[in-house]
């Protein structure tokens, strides 16, 4: 492998890994607090992408914006719209599909999550395109061109880095910084840590555990929505089933890092992205998904606690 090719794959891996990491955080935060694998989380990511796209449509599908307007106005509005749709969807599913099953055997909410996943995919596939003025959602929809990012790249000596990659990696860094602050420095964050360690005792401290659970779903959904926008720009299009594979990969990343461990989700995502990029280079690109799940199985067999270790439940 030439140095240039190596660098190219490094950037590809980091971009892909950042997407996985942003989604993986949602799996891990929710798991850490309610021990639920939210299999609909991939669809929350998809809803975020569609939410952002819808903002663009409602803004009149602008195509000739200056870079300043696109980056200063359109993109922030799209991200915000994506976050609102994703968080709204996540809170509704939590309230109506998971909360009623909280005392039930663990399998029940898991099946409910799979049901929600199918529901959201079909909902977008069948209904989104029927709204007047909205594009056919049965096929991939080209994601809007964001002047200043889409199609641009920066030159580092001989190698060029696509701006969409820069955006994706930057999104992960910024979101991780926010997340760190939120978990470690806010009262709600402290309540989340306490609840993940011992929910009953958290209740005795006066913590409203329902609210903590909602916060966990909301935080995960917000990051997934950012990933949805980044994915739209990086890949170039969105579709109703984009959350399926991305969700599975991000889940793999969360397990790889240690499910329940937020740092682990970020590390797991980036590692998985890099492995896919380089494995695709060494062997056949078509095999990259296979490597992701080979990793999942190897981790489950040989290091089920993940790279950084799962949340250790330690009770007196």
């Amino acid at each position: 492998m030439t140095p240039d090719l190596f660098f190219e794959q490094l950037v590809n891996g980091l971009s892909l890994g950042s997407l996985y990491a942003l989604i993986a955080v949602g799996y891990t935060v929710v798991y850490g607090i309610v021990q639920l694998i939210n299999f609909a989380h991939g669809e929350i990511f998809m809803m975020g992408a569609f939410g952002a796209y819808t903002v663009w449509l409602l803004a009149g599908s602008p195509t000739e914006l200056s870079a300043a307007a696109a980056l200063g106005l359109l993109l922030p509005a799209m991200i915000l719209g994506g976050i609102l749709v994703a968080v709204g969807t996540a809170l509704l599913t939590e309230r109506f599909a998971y909360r009623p099953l909280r005392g039930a055997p663990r399998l029940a909410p898991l099946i409910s999550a799979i049901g929600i996943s199918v529901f959201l995919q079909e909902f977008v596939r069948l209904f989104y395109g029927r709204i007047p003025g909205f594009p056919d959602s049965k096929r991939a929809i080209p994601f809007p061109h964001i002047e200043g990012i889409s199609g641009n790249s920066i030159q580092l000596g001989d190698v060029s880095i696509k701006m969409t990659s820069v955006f994706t990696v930057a999104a992960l860094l910024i979101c991780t910084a926010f997340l760190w602050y939120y978990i470690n420095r806010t009262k709600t964050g402290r309540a989340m840590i306490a609840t993940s360690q011992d929910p009953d005792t958290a209740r005795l401290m006066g913590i409203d555990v329902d609210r903590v659970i909602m916060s966990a779903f909301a935080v995960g959904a917000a990051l997934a929505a950012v990933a949805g926008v980044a994915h739209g720009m990086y890949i170039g299009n969105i579709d109703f089933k984009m959350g399926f594979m991305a969700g599975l990969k991000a889940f793999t990343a969360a397990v790889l890092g240690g499910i329940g461990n937020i740092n682990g989700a970020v590390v797991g995502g980036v590692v998985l992205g890099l492995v896919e990029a380089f494995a695709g280079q060494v062997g056949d690109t078509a095999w990259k998904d296979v490597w992701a799940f080979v990793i999942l199985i190897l981790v489950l067999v040989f290091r089920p606690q993940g790279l950084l270790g799962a949340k250790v439940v330690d009770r007196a």
Partner: protein
Amino acid sequence: MLEVKGLEVAYGRVKAVKGISFGVESGQVVTLLGINGAGKSTTLRAISGLVPPAAGEIWFDGERIDSLPAHKIVERGIAQSPEGRRLFKNMSVEDNLLLGAFSRKDADGVKRDLDRVYGMFDVLSRRRDELAGLFSGGEQQMLAIGRAMMSQPKLLMLDEPSMGLSPIMTQQIMATIKELRSEGVTILLVEQNAQAALSLADKGYVLEVGNIAFSDTGKALLKDDRVRRAYLGAD
């Protein structure tokens, strides 16, 4: 202050508490005695709102609280130091204490109570940044009581504060409870160490498999033959 009427709690089909009634007056130390599985901890969990009662009523300060969520009950002024202490072991002493004050909005008052707890427990004050899991059983118990005090409770419920502690440590914890009582804190105490509990208590209730068998003042129960045989090791 606290009035429990005909409380029943069931886990699945098993009734752990079968219709008990008792009361705690303001300023009193009241103890619930009984063997393992008599339903003492379950009773406290029901009062705190961690398990829903199957029947009966719980009143606190003239308000019925048995259908309130747990965090609302803390806001009303009932704190519990649970069985086994249940500290957040990966957090520092100070973070544990601050979580105890989670429901409070008065930052100045929280600061004052933090100083008060540190004043009561010197070892916590000296090692406030260390992780709670690194402390000895007795020190952890002090932290658990301190944490419960941080919500500024009107009623403090202590579940087995002497469990697993050495006799010396037990004495120290009991001295702490005495000190709290002299400050006017109302206490509901669940203890297996009947001798220690009854010497402190204004009133004691003896639970036998989910029912109140009998009750009296702490002094009278110390001399009661049934209590002496069952809980104090007399023949």
